């Protein structure tokens, strides 16, 4: 099955060589060839690899996917598909549609303050010096078959550049929508570069608009130069037939600050590979995750933090609620290198299992080669607290509502860390909706739901508490 797909990919690569390489400077062409051979050698990750032991791609790779090597000529109703209804949330929206960058007027915009936003393919033409300086520099450190394939195949994606000292005045919202009547295999490649002392808020949404199977293999490289600050949110709300492998590589220089969220609301198979290299002293990374898993969904979060330089801090908090036959994997790996003294690293993973058929695999690893460090990790798997349930029920609240309240409280620890108020409220709403099982019936994507939540969520008579 997988070999069929591999053969298909090899065939298509040769057949569409001209198209794939058409946009490339020689360095990139060379890299493509190299990466393709690497992919052939590494193959798709199998469960025999330690990092993929609990995420089996066999089934989803067995499907017959279609590949497209140029943007599909489709009439896109922007207003319908990319309407964003987060109340009071003013963003600059950029979009990938079925893996291709789409736009109203220009593929690459340079804002007055120097910020460049647009298509990756176009940026490669217009700003090769920036792209080539960073492209594949961070992803190459931890190569697996999938991201090698991405480097070989990917033709487009999003490019963002914030110059030194600039604070991007608007949140950039990157929406990746899948909407095709056939099964798609999408590979996009994104590059975000933050100059010295710059600041950016980036919201990255993955949505699907239909119920077709698709496979997204996306690689994002993000470079944070000295003193820069990035607020990064990933929202994932896909249909249950979709697979999403999202590899993100962060490279942090001195005194840079990263805060990243991975919020997986829905999706057939989601894997977030987060790789963070703290490559300058004084840098800090806050990594948060929330996953709500039910039916036969599978969410896998892999967080690899490399403390390469002294005086860095990292803080991880991942929480998940699992229902039905859902399964989740958490694998946190903190590496503290030899001279990375004065490192502080924390890692927490908490899970609630609601049924006996749900499964959690948690592997919080620490690998430490420096002595003046403070590292700790914790992982728990449990259920809703009986005493708390009893307390709430004894106040006349139905079991159903009590359960919702406790689950919501569990998730709130992550949600409350979102620093943008309108976004926080929206995610809050979505989580409540999701917990009530209403999100699945919503056929639109996350940010399209116009019905704002009522303020009064749990039908609880507060006077009784």
């Amino acid at each position, binding site marked *: 099955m997988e070999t069929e797909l591999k053969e298909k990919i090899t065939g298509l690569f040769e057949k569409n060589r001209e198209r794939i390489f058409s946009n490339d400077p020689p360095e990139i062409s060379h890299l493509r060839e190299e990466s393709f051979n690497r992919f052939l050698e590494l193959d798709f990750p199998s469960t025999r690899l330690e990092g993929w032991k609990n995420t089996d791609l066999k089934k989803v790779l067995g499907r017959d996917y279609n590949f497209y090597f140029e943007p599909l000529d489709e009439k896109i109703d922007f207003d319908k598909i990319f309407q964003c209804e987060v109340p009071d949330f003013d963003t600059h929206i950029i979009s990938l549609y079925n893996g291709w960058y789409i736009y109203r007027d220009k593929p690459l915009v340079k804002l007055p303050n120097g910020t460049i936003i647009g298509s990756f393919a176009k940026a490669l033409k217009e700003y090769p010096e920036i792209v080539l300086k960073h492209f594949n520099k961070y992803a190459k450190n931890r190569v697996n078959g999938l991201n090698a394939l991405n480097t070989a195949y990917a033709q487009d994606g999003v490019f963002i550049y914030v110059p030194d000292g600039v604070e991007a005045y608007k949140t950039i919202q990157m929406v990746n929508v899948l909407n095709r009547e056939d099964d798609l295999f999408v590979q996009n490649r994104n590059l975000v570069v933050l100059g010295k002392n710059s600041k950016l808020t980036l919201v990255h949404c993955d949505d699907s608009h239909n119920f077709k199977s698709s496979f997204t293999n996306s690689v994002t490289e993000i470079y944070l130069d000295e003193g820069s600050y990035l607020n990064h949110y990933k929202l994932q709300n896909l249909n249950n037939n979709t697979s999403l492998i999202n590899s993100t590589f962060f490279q942090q220089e001195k005194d840079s600050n990263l805060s990243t969220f991975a919020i997986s609301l829905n999706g057939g198979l989601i894997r977030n590979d987060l790789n963070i290299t703290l490559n300058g002293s004084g840098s800090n990374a806050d990594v948060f995750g929330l996953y709500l898993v039910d039916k036969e969904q599978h969410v896998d979060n892999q967080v690899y933090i490399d403390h390469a330089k002294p005086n860095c801090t990292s803080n991880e908090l991942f929480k998940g609620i699992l229902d039905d036959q859902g399964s989740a994997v958490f694998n946190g790996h903190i590496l503290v290198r030899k001279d990375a003294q004065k490192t502080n690293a924390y890692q927490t993973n908490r899970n609630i299992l609601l049924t006996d058929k749900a499964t959690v695999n948690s592997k919080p690893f620490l690998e430490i080669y420096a002595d003046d460090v403070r590292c*700790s990790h914790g992982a*728990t798997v449990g259920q809703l607290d009986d005493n708390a349930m009893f307390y709430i029920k004894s106040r006349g609240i139905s079991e159903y509502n009590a359960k919702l309240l406790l689950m919501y409280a569990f998730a709130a620890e992550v949600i409350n860390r979102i620093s943008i108020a309108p976004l926080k409220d929206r995610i809050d709403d979505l989580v409540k909706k999701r917990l009530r099982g209403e999100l699945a019936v919503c056929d639109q994507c996350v940010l399209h739901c116009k019905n704002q939540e009522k303020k009064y969520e749990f039908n609880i008579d507060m006077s009784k508490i």
Partner: protein
Amino acid sequence: MGNENNILDQVTQGEYKYGFYTDIETDIAPKGLNEGIIRLISQKKNEPEFMLEFRLKAFEKWKTMKQPNWAHLSIPPIDYQDISYYAAPKKKKEIGSLDEVDPELLDTFNKLGISLEEQKRLTGVAVDAVFDSVSVKTTFRGTLEKHGIIFCSFSEAVQNHPDLIKKYMGSVVPAGDNYFAALNSAVFTDGSFCYIPPGVRCPVELSTYFRINTAGTGQFERTLIVADEGSYVSYMEGCTAPMRDENQLHAAVVEIVALKDAVVKYSTVQNWYPGDKNGKGGVYNFVTKRGMCKGSHSKISWTQVETGSAITWKYPSCILLGDYSVGEFYSVAVTNNHQQADTGSKMTHIGKNTKSTIISKGISAGVSNNSYRGLVKISRRAENSRNFSQCDSLLLGDKCGAHTFPYIDTQNSSSIVEHEATTSKISDDQLFYCLQRGIDTEKAIGLIVNGYAKEVLKQLPMEFAVEAQKLLSISLEGSVG
């Protein structure tokens, strides 16, 4: 105070003090591993047919296996054909009284502080001493027999209690369980066997002492403990080896079976030769230890103090099959100089309402690497199970490594699994507090380290606890800057 000064003296000058070699005539098999050698071992030990079958089956399996490389260890290639798989002190006859034991041997064990003589009665420990691969003497047999307890060398058990061996050997660690267990199953030469009859509380601590003596040999012993319904036993294991420049292989298997309501407490102080300061020589300690809580309300508790060996690869584990069974694992692992350790525990919860606790304390110094690796698996039907794990690491020096690799695998909703771990160095505050009370750095660190390991040390039987505490200080000697 006097005692502490003593410890400190040892701390400051302590080399590996068990590094002597006993010149004793040995019967040694030619180097190499093949079917012929296995048949030779089996024949020398005059084993029944089922044992030979077991060995050959394991050997067949072993040939198809590869040495595992997933651990956080760098293991130099081992030439399994360059090891002699059988070495025994010569002229081993039926030994009735101590007088008949080779005086050289007795002297060796006296040097090790393990008197095989009856004076041991005072401390109330029954000892089975294993020299190279052969059990030389078991003390206290009379007392034990009165209670119906069987405590003897594995070979004797094969001769005298073949039914028990047949029934339980390989039931917890199957012949082909893993690479080293398969190797052991094929070539093991001796070990201890212990059976506690129903309802008996073993009146003394049982103890096995292992020593590798002959050069170019490996030690492959096998221990089997069966605790029948409602019985109790506390079992201790210690080990040493001479200092040699070459590496010696120790691949042992320990199996424990606890039936309904039985309690087994297994303590180890592992002090194989760790190699010299430059990482030359030392024992490779690749051990498979596993206990099976077969009956309901049974309990198996592992306590280990790991200070020796150049490389340790060891995961004492519990299969909690019976409902309400309990598994415990307490460990202090110290690595210094070039030592490497990858150790931890596996708790497999299968029965309902099962409980497990893991407390692991790692201490690394010098340029050593110390890893905790553990698995807690809660299977679907293990309702209301509970696990608590705590794995702390202490780093002394900036060239060593301390790693934690826990695996948590939960498949039902009524169980609770908790894992927590910290890694840190000795806090400056603690050190400062001691210093300003007039306690010098070295002493202060000894104090803090012992306090750090206390939670585990207090689980050890008294005889062992004293030795373990001293060992801790000695192992860390020279690492304190």
